[in-house]
């Protein structure tokens, strides 16, 4: 099929790339020890990128019949006559030897019986329900696994093909005391089926809900603040856009022209590693077939560089960093992160708290998608626990935290020696000197 795309393109004298993605998914949601929703899915699709005299055309199709593919290629070539020519549009060259990653595929996902997968979800629910009598509702306990194969070929002779799988469990629950209800959530995603641990997930979600009960409101203040790893990974979504070469080149990043400069606290180290051992986002090549690698982004607070795909790298006159990403076969590749990691520091999370006389320990943020990656401004809802005399005291909700990411990164004054992964992002516990908290 992919060959067909290239043959038509060659006949028409244009450069072409075929991206074929096959995806299989299983999701089991359990409620009261019954399978409430079982979803099985299979999806296949082809994305076609054409470059004709520097002009870009793109189409996709889920119909892989001969005539549908021919139509899609012709449409992509047709579209290319309307886009603005750009000398930096090019397809990657043929790549030699992609790295071999032995951990991408765990056959156990295919060999075990579906009942065992159902049991994983049931276990999470059962443990959570019986953990504490204040856990009133387990909203959902879910097992999910995904397997995908990706094939990329282009008219430069590039050929890349690999498959991977992973699975995980998720739980949402509600604790209630004196008529007031609070949520708890936890997840675990793993490359190895037998590393998935329902006890840990159930306990974490339960504790998250229980610690939020009987929350108070507080007055507005400027306080030293601690971000749990999960909260920090949400902020990393904003950072990811600021170090994206596409945003940088278009004047949409506060980090533009700051390579080699201090952009964060000297204890802050940020890397993106497409080959990370057991990483959920690890893959031998990126979404246009360029070999994956590890990229240092911020080292000891100094900005080392940005993440590039082939187009943005051409524009900058350097090599792609292997960060072309696509969410599906339906779009062109853009710049994206892989395993995006803040490196752990040397202090225990506990000591980060015990140093604070009065502060705020943040356990939840709301409306993170409203933060602005271009201006760096964020103002989001938050909940957490007050720190007094070095101890976690009472829970707080209904407040906001606000600031600008530039100040945020400079204000980091301690980093924990813990690290937690949430999908492709991971972070230790982080402490800020001061943060604006909006309350009563």
């Amino acid at each position: 099929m992919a060959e067909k795309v290239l043959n038509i393109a060659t006949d028409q004298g244009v450069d072409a790339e075929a991206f074929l993605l096959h995806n299989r998914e299983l999701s089991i949601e359990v409620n009261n020890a019954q399978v409430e929703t079982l979803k099985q899915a299979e999806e296949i699709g082809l994305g076609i990128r054409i470059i004709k005299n520097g002009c870009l055309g793109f189409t996709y199709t889920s119909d892989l019949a001969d005539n549908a593919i021919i139509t899609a290629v012709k449409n992509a070539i047709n579209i290319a006559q309307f886009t603005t020519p750009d000398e930096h549009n090019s397809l990657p060259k043929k790549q030699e030897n992609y790295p071999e990653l032995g951990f991408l595929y765990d056959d156990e996902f295919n060999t075990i019986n579906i009942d065992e997968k159902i049991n994983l979800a049931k276990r999470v629910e059962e443990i959570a329900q019986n953990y504490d009598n204040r856990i009133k509702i387990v909203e959902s306990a879910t097992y999910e696994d995904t397997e995908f194969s990706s094939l990329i070929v282009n008219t430069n002779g590039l050929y890349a093909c690999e498959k991977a799988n992973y699975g995980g469990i998720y739980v949402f629950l509600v604790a209630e005391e004196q008529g007031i209800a609070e949520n708890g959530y936890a997840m675990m995603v793993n490359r190895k089926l037998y590393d998935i641990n329902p006890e840990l997930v159930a306990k974490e979600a339960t504790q998250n809900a229980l610690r939020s009960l009987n929350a108070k409101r507080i007055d507005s203040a400027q306080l030293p603040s601690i971000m749990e790893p999960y909260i920090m990974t949400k902020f990393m979504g904003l950072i990811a856009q600021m170090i994206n070469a596409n945003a940088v080149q278009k004047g949409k990043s506060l980090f533009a022209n700051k390579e080699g400069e201090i952009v964060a606290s000297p204890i802050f180290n940020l890397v993106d590693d497409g080959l990370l051992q057991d990483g959920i986002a690890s893959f031998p090549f990126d979404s246009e077939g360029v070999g994956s690698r590890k990229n240092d982004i911020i080292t000891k607070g100094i900005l080392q560089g940005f993440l590039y795909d082939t187009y943005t790298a051409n524009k900058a006159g350097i090599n792609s960093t292997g960060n072309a990403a696509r969410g599906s076969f339906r779009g062109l590749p853009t710049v994206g992160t892989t395993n995006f990691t803040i490196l752990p520091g040397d202090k225990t999370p506990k000591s980060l708290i015990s140093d604070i006389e009065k502060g705020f320990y943040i356990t939840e943020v709301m409306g993170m998608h409203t933060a602005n990656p271009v201006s760096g401004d964020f103002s989001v809802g938050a909940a957490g626990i007050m720190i007094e005399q070095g101890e976690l005291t009472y829970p707080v909700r209904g407040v906001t935290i606000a600031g600008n990411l530039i100040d945020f990164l400079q204000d980091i004054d301690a980093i924990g020696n813990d690290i937690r992964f949430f999908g492709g992002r991971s972070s230790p516990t982080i402490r800020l000197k001061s943060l604006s908290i909006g309350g009563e």
Partner: protein
Amino acid sequence: MLNKNVLTKILDIALKKGGDFAEIYVEEKTVNNIFCEDNKIERINGGIEKGAGIRVINAGNTAYVYTNDLTESGLLNSAITASNALVNANSAPISNINLQVRKPNYTLDCLKQPDNMGIEDKITKILDANKLARNISEEIRQVTIAIGDSKKKLQIANSNGVYVEDERLRVRLIANIVSGRDNLIQTGYESAGGVCGLELLDEFSLEALAEKAANLSLNMLDAKPAPAGKMPIVMAAEAGGTMVHEACGHGLEADLVQRGLSVYNKKGEKVANEKVTVIDDASIPSKYGSYVFDDEGEVGQKTILIENGYLTNYMYDYLTAEKDKVKSTGNGRRESYQHKPIPRMSNTYIAPGFDKPDEIIKSTKKGLLVKKMGGGQVNTTNGDFVFEVSEGYLIEDGEVQYPVRGATLIGNGPIALTQIDRVANDIGYAIGTCGKDGQGVPVADAQPTIRIKELTVGGTAIDHDNLTIKRIRRK
């Protein structure tokens, strides 16, 4: 499109091992997007995707299977998978399914088919808007203009004999402007969208959207940091309805109510100020959340959720309606064939009242005027919601003063609804993509100019004098 005999056969197979209900949803979606950034037509994307989702329900539990393989054998295989996935189905198979075409209650017209406008003409409009925005000021650093249209052809058939065919056109226009001064960068975003054809461009020209977004981003360069703390909030009609969507819309979706996950399990009770009436209406012509049939083949309708402060109804899909033994309100929606339908909003709004917008501002001594809202989020379990203020102004002594930036508002749904003390006689819409359970669906929200007695503003400018006064008062 598949013929009815094939669909019937698939439903029969899906129910072979028992089950109370089976459904097949077939979708063919064509998408066209033109995207201009960096002063050039950077991307044109087009694509076509076909797929089907088969659902079997037994005793409230669901098996859902989807596939891109729309051949008869492919679909029958998926039906078998769905049937096998049902654990402990014990009801007898339903037989003699007789598919009857369901008639719509109304139509949503498309005056200008997007296919009839050439790519060149769309590009001309886009480039004109790009040029206009760039000429407004030297501080404009980046301009993004996009037109997207999509066509979804649907076929839905279920074991209750419902058969629906539908075609939905949707158009969306976007202008995003970045302006900068020294190290400060601000953005302005404007969008318009509807279930309609390119006549949308007559109502909202791309140039006008671009100009508005450009002025907003420039305006925000001059803005002062927003205050932090509680204060009265006036929301202009033009700000749209993100607040109502988050503060009560989600909590009135029947699945959340039935699971005990909503603070609004209070049907018949007073939950809002008597000036407040909240309505969800899929039948409004050309709005972004409109539809003739929902994604389960139920006819779209207008549902009064809160009437004069009293909670009157929830939004139901088929499954939750069965559970409450009521009729679906036509709110069963899904992002695509890859998702099972769940209760979702369509076009949700607070109905206009009798106050005059100007007088609401004039009667506010100190507060925040919200002229444009961005995204939001709600925790339906405790009712806390947030939404972004993308254009805000401080009100002092009834007069609109300077613009402020960086403010999110946080409040609690049930409390905020009782604190709406003014409702004006105007109305304004905003469009969005609403996310729930990993599914995004297009919605519109609207409201008149309203005032909420107090919400917490999440700015960075903390007024320490004010804090002290507040503390004393509390003692």
